[in-house]
């Protein structure tokens, strides 16, 4: 694998805007979508990344069982009120679409950094924008990216189990709304009828005990790009739980009237994703699979014997609150202050570094299967919301 520099397409801004990427440039004028470089892989390297993604997904599934069997949700700062709903959702398997494993890969070892399982973004960039970049610049090369096809296929599978329309919701950020709109686009292409609604526009009808849209129509299915941990801490959090098993009774879904414990409202992603998007998962994975080649040592009670490690808040987002310690010295972020939710302490991973950039490889799963990759680059050791997206190809 190697990082190569190249000339961006002359009209790259127009080209990426044409496929929906309106947030291609950061506030300081530097490109977020950065096609002045790309990463090149061999087919064998992509095979390894794909296999690692599938293996990590299996480990995460096993970890989910252990977290629930051993009542570990409280260790993860997950509210007690949500425990029964998480357990019910895990067992009844309501629809789940996507997730992104963030991997460290230096050409030798592949290590899991974290699992963005509930609200991953960078999807449009990975599925669409880099696909068009490849078509324009390297049409004979291949790319680890069947995201678009797999998303449409998954929505087609779900068509018989969802009410119509399917609502697509996000907060107010442009990036989230574009991501949701792209997801909605793939659902439309699967033949679904869809509607957009902002999270703050969602209504709760206290007489009918259901969520309603702006026309006060009952919402039966929603794809939300909005974290469950935020929802549960908001005024409608308890209402959301009341739409889920065990509070919500057995329902009939689809033309065959399948009876399932999915609740009166289908929430995609499902509430059990709180277990995987929580960074305590990393410690559970290491505890269950000590020494596994794809995992880094990770602990909840402190760094133990690690002299070089990353301290991550359990519910941290986009690099927030992260501290990097190298040989006992803080080299990024800060260890000052305490976070009520707690931290995970994870060993430093060997990262891909080139041209002053550190790269993280976001490996996507659709319906639990490896489906593509997006690469984020940072000048420092922490990937955050200003880290640029760089395309890739392989031969």
């Amino acid at each position, binding site marked *: 694998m190697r990082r190569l520099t190249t000339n961006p397409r002359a009209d790259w801004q127009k080209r990426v*805007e044409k*496929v*929906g990427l309106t947030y291609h440039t950061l506030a300081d004028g530097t490109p977020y979508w950065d096609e002045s470089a790309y990463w090149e892989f061999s087919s064998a390297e*992509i095979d390894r990344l*794909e296999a690692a993604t599938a293996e990590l997904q299996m480990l995460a599934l096993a970890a989910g069982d252990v977290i629930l069997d051993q009542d570990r949700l409280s260790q993860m700062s997950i509210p007690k009120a949500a425990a029964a709903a998480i357990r019910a959702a895990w067992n009844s398997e309501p629809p789940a679409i996507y997730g992104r494993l963030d991997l460290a890969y230096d050409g030798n070892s592949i290590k899991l950094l974290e699992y*963005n399982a509930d609200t*991953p973004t960078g999807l*449009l960039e990975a*599925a669409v924008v880099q*696909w*068009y970049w*490849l078509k324009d610049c390297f049409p004979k090369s*291949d*790319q*680890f*990216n*069947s*995201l*678009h*096809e797999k998303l449409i296929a998954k929505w087609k599978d779900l068509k018989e189990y969802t009410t119509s329309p399917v609502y697509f919701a*996000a*907060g*107010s*950020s442009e*990036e*989230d*709304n*574009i991501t949701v*709109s*792209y997801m*909605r*686009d793939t659902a*439309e*292409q699967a033949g679904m009828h869809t509607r*957009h609604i*902002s*999270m*703050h*526009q*969602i*209504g709760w*009808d*206290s007489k*009918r005990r259901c969520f309603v849209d*702006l026309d*006060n129509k009952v919402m039966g299915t929603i794809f939300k*790009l*909005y*974290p469950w941990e*935020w*929802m549960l*801490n908001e*005024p*409608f959090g308890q*209402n959301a739980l009341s739409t889920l098993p065990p509070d919500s009774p057995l329902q009939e879904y689809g033309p065959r009237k399948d009876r399932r414990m999915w609740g009166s409202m289908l929430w995609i992603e499902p509430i059990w994703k709180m277990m995987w998007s929580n960074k305590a998962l990393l410690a559970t994975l290491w505890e269950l699979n000590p020494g596994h080649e794809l995992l880094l040592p990770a602990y909840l009670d402190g760094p133990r014997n690690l002299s070089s490690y990353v301290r991550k808040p359990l519910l941290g*987002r*986009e690099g927030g609150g992260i501290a990097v310690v190298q040989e006992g010295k803080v080299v990024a972020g800060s260890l000052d202050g305490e976070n009520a939710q707690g931290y995970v302490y994870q060993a430093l991973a060997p990262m891909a570094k080139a041209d002053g950039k550190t790269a993280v490889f976001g490996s996507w799963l659709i319906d639990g299967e490896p489906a*593509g990759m997006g690469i984020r680059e940072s000048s420092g050791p922490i990937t955050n*919301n200003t880290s640029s997206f760089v395309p890739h190809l*392989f031969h």
Partner: protein
Amino acid sequence: MRKSREVHLVLLASVALSLTACRDEQQNCVDANNRLLPPSACQTGSSGAHYVYGGSSGGNVGDTVVGSSVTRGGFGSFGGGGGDGGE
């Protein structure tokens, strides 16, 4: 080949241009007992403050809003008023 054969978009380009064109209804900021609060209480995320849509009141802080079983604004207050939920 590991890449998608075709990547067509049917909706996204037009949606990207229209994201700011949201519908609005008459909204009132109320407390847990449906009593009117100043709008700033909902904007700053004060405890229990939320919007209800529809219904009517005398228009003064402390008045009860009646006539709507639907409340809105119970989601979307995190991340600086519903900011980046994605990561």
